[in-house]
């Protein structure tokens, strides 16, 4: 399986993401710069954390108009897996690939800590290796992770099981403690916590690795069926 890590000016978790795939998962991975226009040949796309374009205007807003995002939208519309972590999640929101928006954290502080997450929906192609309701430990590092959406959207997210991860404690003011959501078709996941920083015992947790293993297992299953 071949992964693409999209690199925007100001991305700073791209190397961690690359490492998680190459060393943690043991699969093929390449960096794809923001000015590229195609994602042909890749099986999954990863949008890393960081401060794309210096967080100018709004987090992720400038990056959402970069050239590669057209290709990311095409890729997503084909039902292929797209994962956005932290700033990557913000880019997916700004690009309209996921509903809602991010505000400054309630306490107006940058939060950098390992956080307990509940796996709310283990039936997605990103979470099939987790158990329903399982508590996992994954680091967060963000100043704008305060998830906001209107009441209708929130109701739909809950009703359709699109809330995938929830914070155990309200750390940033997010509605319904939302830490990660998928789109309606389930192939685009955005999450503020960093699974790529939890793929090795040396990093303090290996709970994030199963997210990438889920993507791989799902891809293998689909691949086996189609061939």
């Amino acid at each position, binding site marked *: 399986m071949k992964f693409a890590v999209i690199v925007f000016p100001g991305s700073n978790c791209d190397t961690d993401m690359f490492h998680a795939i190459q060393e943690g998962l043991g699969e093929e991975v390449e960096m794809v710069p923001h000015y590229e226009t195609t994602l042909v040949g890749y099986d999954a796309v990863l949008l890393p954390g960081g401060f794309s374009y210096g967080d100018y*205007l709004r987090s992720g807003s400038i990056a959402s108009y970069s050239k590669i995002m057209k290709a990311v939208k095409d890729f997503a519309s084909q039902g292929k897996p797209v994962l956005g972590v932290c700033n990557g999640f913000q880019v997916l929101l700004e690009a309209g690939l996921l*509903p809602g*928006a991010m*505000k*400054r954290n309630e*306490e107006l502080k940058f939060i950098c800590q390992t956080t307990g997450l509940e796996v709310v929906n283990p039936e997605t192609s990103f979470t099939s290796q987790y158990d329903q309701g399982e508590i996992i430990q994954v680091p967060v590092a963000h100043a704008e992770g305060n998830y906001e*959406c*209107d009441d209708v959207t929130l109701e739909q997210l809950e009703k359709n099981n699109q809330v995938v991860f929830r914070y155990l404690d309200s750390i940033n*003011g997010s509605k319904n403690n939302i830490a990660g959501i998928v789109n309606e078709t389930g192939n685009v996941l955005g999450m503020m916590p960093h699974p790529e920083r939890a793929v090795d015992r040396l990093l303090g947790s290996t709970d994030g690795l199963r997210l990438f293993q889920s993507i791989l297992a799902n891809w293998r299953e689909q691949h086996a069926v189609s061939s």
Partner: protein
Amino acid sequence: MVKVKVYITLKSGVLDPQGKAIEHALGAMEIHNVSGMRVGKYMEFYMEEKNPDQGQIEMMCEKLLSNPVIEDYSYETEEVVPS
């Protein structure tokens, strides 16, 4: 040529932690008759036309300058003589 002034504000239902913090700081300055502080953004730019396409300005505001999920925008235009 016109100068366009765009005001971006948080939607009324959206809580504004920054505004709250500023109000708190005013309280620390012994100013207690201020309430409902909200933080927004102001942008200005020029457009070549004398009567620019309002639809284009609105499209720019909706697609990039503001995020309609949490923000409202308003704008005004003012004729200027290019120097």
